[in-house]
């Protein structure tokens, strides 16, 4: 049995807090971006703690500093960046589900470690889908970026237990990360020396990271001097513009691009990138397509994606 409950009222929206599911598919032909939760691991755990479907929407809190009041008795879960959540002033553990009573206020501070937290409600949020998804892509005028006063309805479910993600699945968000690269796209147009220097280089994550992409800086990689015909950009594609500073393309990326790309970051490594803070060190190592595929399938099987 489910019913429509007045769920949560946004008292303070934070910065760029938005509703996200697994993304919007089938619209790239019209130039519409996929969107979707940037940290899929944290998103999926928030839903799993509550027995939701992986595609149920969560609130992606990009910076934190949000306050939300419950309008009904609900069960919530929070995962991802550590934002020192408090329920009416009492601390709530991260990577946990917990009950919230009507009238109680959940407050989140600025992220202490990691960048993005995910908040889910048991039964899922009730939101109108646009082209099959609720994901907010502000540039495409689709979905919902939270604003003060928003009321987010929830599908009512019976009481459920409070649970916690087993500690072996809780990642530590480091300031030095290694990303595995599936070599593809224009890889054969980079010389062995160019690739060697790419894998040897230590890059730094710049403050220029948002839902579209992450810009790195470092010693620089010489980009091949070939004209590329604009083509579809996959999630995690590593683009090398003429200045040699890599850009990793993320959920709200443009659908097409014309810069050389040397491959894609393994999908299961993207949470490390989107939780890293500007200034973090980034190194790349190659991974075989078959290894990356098996890990991705394991992830999908585990969360029933």
């Amino acid at each position, binding site marked *: 049995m489910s019913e429509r409950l007045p769920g949560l009222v946004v008292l303070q929206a934070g910065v760029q807090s938005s509703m996200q599911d697994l993304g919007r*598919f*089938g*619209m*790239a*032909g*019209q*130039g*519409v*971006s*996929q969107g979707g939760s940037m940290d899929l691991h944290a998103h999926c755990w928030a839903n799993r703690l509550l027995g939701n479907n992986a595609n149920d929407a969560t609130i992606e809190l990009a910076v934190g500093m949000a306050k939300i009041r419950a309008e009904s008795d609900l069960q919530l879960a929070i995962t991802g960046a550590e934002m020192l959540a408090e329920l009416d002033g009492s601390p709530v553990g991260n990577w946990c589900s917990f009950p919230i009573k009507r009238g109680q206020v959940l407050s989140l501070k600025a992220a202490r470690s990691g960048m993005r937290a995910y908040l889910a409600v048991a039964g899922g949020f009730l939101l109108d889908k*646009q*082209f099959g998804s609720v994901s907010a892509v502000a*540039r*495409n*005028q*689709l979905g919902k970026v939270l604003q003060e006063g928003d009321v987010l309805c929830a599908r009512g479910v019976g009481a459920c237990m409070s649970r916690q993600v087993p500690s072996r699945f809780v990642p530590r968000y480091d300031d030095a990360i290694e990303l595995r690269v*599936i070599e*593809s*796209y224009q890889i054969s147009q980079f010389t062995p020396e160019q690739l060697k220097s790419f894998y040897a280089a230590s890059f730094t994550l710049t403050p220029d990271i948002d839902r579209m992409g992450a810009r790195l800086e470092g010693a620089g990689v010489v980009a091949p001097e070939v004209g590329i*015909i*604009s*083509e*579809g*950009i*996959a*999630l*995690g*594609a590593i683009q090398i513009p003429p200045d040699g500073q890599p850009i990793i393309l993320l959920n709200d990326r*443009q*659908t*097409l*691009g014309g810069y050389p790309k040397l*491959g*894609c970051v*393994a*999908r299961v490594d993207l949470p490390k990138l989107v939780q890293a803070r500007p200034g973090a060190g980034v190194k790349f190592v190659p991974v075989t*397509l*078959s290894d*990356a*595929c098996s890990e*991705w*399938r394991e992830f*999908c099987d585990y969360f029933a*994606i």
Partner: protein
Amino acid sequence: MTGYDIRCVPVSETSVMLYLADVIDAGLAPAVGETARAILDELPEVREVTPSYTSILVEVGSLGSDFEALAGALSAIACRVLETGESELLGKLIELPVYYDPEVGEDLESLAEFAGLSVDEVIGIHTGREYSVCAIGFAPGFAFLGEVDERIAMPRQVTPRSHVPAGSVGIAGRQTAVYPADTPGGWQLIGNCPVSLYDPENDPPSPLEVGDRVRFCPIEREVFLERGGHV
């Protein structure tokens, strides 16, 4: 159709690229559009297709050990579409009204001067042929149309404008396009089209698809304003 070269290569755990040719040819657009549609319709495991000038990025839930099977199925669809040539009849023809005037097309006069033509000749040449939608990207509903007559081809602005109003019609090299929304941009602006090319409240949000054909029709200021245009 001759000279096509179909290749299918993996790009990530969830995507493969289907290349149909190695050089841009506006005549290929209907086949690219029809191949993309057929892939999405016929292969249930495919969740996304991104057609462009010469390629289609195809996304599935996860690339199993059956990459060869998927590649075979994609190539077979592309071959069928290219060989029958039926796709050339399938694209819709869409007429877009344009008010060509310096008050909405800041570069109309400088483009005419660059081309050594009168403003009326530029308008006559721009409206004088059908264009193919070769790709949609950059922004939702932004359709890259090819190819304009060489006589009115002109490179992009050296420094892009920080604000180009929605509806602006531009030329960049031998491509032409309508900006669906206010955005920064560097194309040479020659007029404005009052028809919305991206509205997230519509389904589909844009009237254009890869492979469609577009013809521009000149309209007077009065008609432009009546149809919702702004000066």
